[in-house]
């Protein structure tokens, strides 16, 4: 086919395009990720006493932290879905979240004895928390990668990692509805580890399937 013919066919195919297609679809993915994680979480592990949770500042600390990582991932994904875009402020948001939580964790640990420090770091669920978050993120990861294939990421692995961070943050926020751990250090280590699992899975999968 000659290039001019191809252009004629494409002009014929020029329907009005959707505006803000990328952020809109990614927001849908966020909602789907949260719903899917919730649908798995409730019958599997159940919710904690939410009346008690919302009165507890540590619940909000965890929620704001995981939501910040999710937001950072969203912003990164939104940029990296486009050819030639730089990563922008998403990385800054995620990094700021980590630094703030690290500062809180240090402040909390400073006044504790070494036995208490170990209890604050490990809680009672450190060995299951990351895996559970990773598992809860899995449906969202599939969804976000499928959506990303419609877009045009030119750095496949990085775009996949950003997508994994995005849905990992959402899934970890949902996991906070179950988990009653309270220390900042626990959140910093094990929630972050769970989100990192999702990020790494996203990078590996993205590297494989986000080329076009």
């Amino acid at each position, binding site marked *: 086919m000659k*290039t001019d013919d191809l252009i004629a*066919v494409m002009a014929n195919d020029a329907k009005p395009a959707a505006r803000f*297609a990328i952020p809109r679809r990614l927001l849908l993915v966020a909602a789907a990720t949260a719903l899917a994680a919730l649908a798995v979480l409730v019958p599997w592990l159940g919710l904690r006493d939410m009346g008690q949770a919302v009165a507890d500042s540590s619940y909000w600390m965890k929620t704001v932290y995981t939501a910040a990582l999710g937001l950072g991932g969203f912003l990164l994904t939104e940029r990296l879905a486009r050819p030639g875009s*730089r990563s922008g402020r998403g990385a800054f948001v995620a990094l700021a979240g980590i630094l703030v939580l690290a500062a809180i964790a240090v402040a909390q640990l400073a006044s504790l004895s070494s036995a208490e420090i170990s209890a604050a770091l490990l809680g009672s669920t450190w060995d299951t928390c990351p895996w559970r978050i990773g598992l809860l993120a899995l449906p969202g990861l599939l969804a976000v990668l499928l959506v990303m294939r419609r877009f045009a990421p030119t750095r496949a692995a990085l775009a996949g990692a950003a997508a994994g961070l995005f849905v990992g943050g959402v899934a970890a926020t949902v996991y906070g509805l179950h988990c009653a751990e309270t220390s900042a250090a626990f959140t910093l280590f094990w929630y972050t580890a769970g989100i990192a699992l999702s990020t790494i899975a996203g990078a590996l999968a993205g590297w494989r399937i986000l080329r076009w």
Partner: protein
Amino acid sequence: MTLAGIYTSNLRLTLNGGIPERLGDFGGVQLWSSLLGATVGGHPGIGGMAVEAFDAPLKALMLKGLGGDAAAHAELLTRMAVLLRRFFARKLGASDQDVEDLVQETLLAIHLKRETWDSAQPFTAWAYAIARYRLIDLYRRRRVRRSEPIESAEALFAEEVGDSSAGADVERLLSELPERQRVVLKAVKLDELSTAEAAARTGMSESAVKVSVHRSLKALMRRVRDEDR
């Protein structure tokens, strides 16, 4: 504006001496020096006016195209074809068989992935990023090809294909499309029928023709990607 008009306006840009160091969020210098040609490569850092002047008409066409204006979309793709052909020819050599295929692949991506352009950003930076991505992909595919055995001795006697704009690869890919899509595509492209006329000829509904055309284009792009994998 005619194609010759674009050429001269590029030339004027060149004579006025200018490409700026940076172009918004993107790697501007690389973009302008490579999409516009080697002539402007050595003159960085002079004002933002030239960039505006060059990107603005393309951007305006893109915005109209996104709004559903087929004529503006065709004009944009035609102008881009000229720029891309020069760009790839410079990278690969003018007689390289892959130049026209890369032009077509990039145009397909500009068309099918147009939702990924952020209208707050320069259009040309986005288009350049796609062109560069297709070029890198070609290098990768060639590396794969090089390791394959030679098919037959006849290749020794094969004549040089004269018309490099024939797009032989895409032609072959086209022949692999499902019958229905191929018929519709041929009606729309070769006989320059409108969607309505093509619908009447093929006995399909107008919306079915539109869907079929869109699917064909996507299939073409997928096949380009899946080759040599």
